């Protein structure tokens, strides 16, 4: 496997041993699955080790695997994927952790300050709580929104539009609209029609 021979993967395995649950090659990219409790330490090491130097925090995202029918890399309902990049070595690494419903993931905000926004977004849309970056305020969604819409048990939904099904409107006779049903044919437009 190509990824196993990568220097960063070898160093992670050597340093953290069984905290690295698995390493996978997915279309040329390295995905490292990490134990949830050790995530912050692994991240710290990735940033600070001069040979690895993952200095650029790209983003993180959540995935809800509730209705997934294929093999999984990790246990737990959700996965959080951190996307990291080293501008020194031009290499990309994905750190993955599995999270169950009601469990928390340590925040990486203390390692890379840029993690704050995507973690807040992930909480907002999935309800995954980041320990150290707990939120009470909605981020992308309106302040009075209930629930986390990107979860798989939430339907596509949409806003209900109030269609009155022909009970009111200018087509119905008993409306208050002054000019309803009136034809303007033959009217020049200059005559005063305001008084009616």
């Amino acid at each position, binding site marked *: 496997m190509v990824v196993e021979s990568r220097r960063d993967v070898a160093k992670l395995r050597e340093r953290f041993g069984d905290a690295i649950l698995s390493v996978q090659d*997915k*279309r040329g*990219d390295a995905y490292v699955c990490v134990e949830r409790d050790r995530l912050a330490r692994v991240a710290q090491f990735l940033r600070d080790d001069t040979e690895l130097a993952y*200095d*650029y*925090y*790209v*983003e993180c*995202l959540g*995935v*809800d695997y509730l209705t*997934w*029918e*294929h093999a999984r890399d990790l246990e737990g309902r959700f996965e959080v*994927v951190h*996307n990291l990049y080293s*501008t020194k070595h*031009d290499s*990309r690494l*994905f750190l993955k952790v599995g999270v169950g419903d009601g469990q928390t993931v340590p925040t990486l905000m203390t390692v*890379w*300050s*840029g*993690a*704050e*926004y*995507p973690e807040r*977004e992930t909480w907002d*849309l999935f309800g995954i709580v980041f320990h150290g970056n707990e939120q009470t*305020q*909605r*981020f*992308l*969604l*309106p*302040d*009075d929104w*209930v629930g986390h*819409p*990107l979860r798989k048990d939430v339907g*596509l939904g949409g806003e209900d539009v109030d269609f009155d099904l022909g009970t009111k409107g200018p087509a119905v006779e008993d409306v208050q609209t002054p000019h309803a049903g009136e034809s303007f044919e033959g009217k020049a437009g200059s005559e005063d029609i305001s008084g009616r």
Partner: protein
Amino acid sequence: MAGKTFIPSTETVFQRTGESTMVVNMGPQHPSTHGVLRIICELEGETIIKAQCVIGYLHTGMEKEAEFQQYHKCVVMTDRMDYMNANGNNLAHALAVEKLLGCQIPKRAQYLRVVLAELSRIASHCVWLGTHALDLGAMTPFFYIMQQRELILDLFEMFSGVRMMPSWIVPGGLRGDVPEGFEERLLAFQANFLDELGTVEDLLVENPIWKERTQGVGVLTGTEALALGCSGPIARGSGVPFDLRKAQPYSSYEDFDFKVPIGTKGDVYDRFLVRLAEMRESNTIITQAMANLPEGSNWTDDRKVAPPPRAELDTSMESLIHHFKLYTEGYKVPVGEAYAAVEGSKGELGFYVVSDGSAMPYRWHERPSSFMNLKSLEVLAKGRLIADLIAIIGSIDIVLGEIDR
């Protein structure tokens, strides 16, 4: 919060740090916040001691919607994310889906994608340059540079019939080849563009008022920028020579000769210079791509993804069935996940797609460049005057469609 009426106010979303400070709410309808960004500032006199961005006013749930759409229908949503750089978004989405599909794109299509993406970059920077100058009180550049952007949009219209949302780059290739007369029109545009850009540069680059407003304002170091997740012109303005077109070339960028401009001080003025230089570099890339445009098809050979040629529909029943099935059922994408990124006009722009083997994505996520860059605003505004905040917002170059999605 269910059951009781919640009235959001500045007090509920903002915690002030000082006693004798003043909290000023800016936006979401403020013209210089470039859309519906809301910033709550805490002021000590005229100095900002804390700034907080409030976003989400344009959130439309595109990532959820995509889970119910076939891959080729997701394309139109990508346009509407960063609507200033629509081709770049189309390209990033196409690359991510193609990575999952494992299909090869002919050289001609790759070159044409580069032309469209670079034109989009120039158009996006034109809008940035015009509005950034407008925010700081220089009105003339706006008129000059928006004319150039209009010409680029005319070129897009020639390609796709649409000016801002072309959706022309799709997984598998491009919807069509170069239209007749496109090259002449592109050359005519290019012949004048550098002069017109020069006019605007003459108005601003050595302008003492412009320099006073932008130099030394919003200084960000390279390390800080990367840790904040900033990429693109913001990171490069801070002296980080990071450009995905060079670092991890995609769509044949390795074939072209271009420079990556970087700044030295990392202030608003440096980011301004970097973007100006980038427009010139994009222009040379377009020239090279059009001059060396290879012969070939604009679609991949993989007939599972590409529609059959129009002529075949008249003679071949199989092609007709295939065409029908492709546009009603879509194509099935192998199980797995992939991330592909491009250097957008605002920074790294990527798509993370998880597929469960069906014709619709299981999870579809954009790595929004403006969203990640926005965090730097809170950092840069601290300790600056409120007038500087306007300069800093302009230099970050945000698009709210991408931030809120």
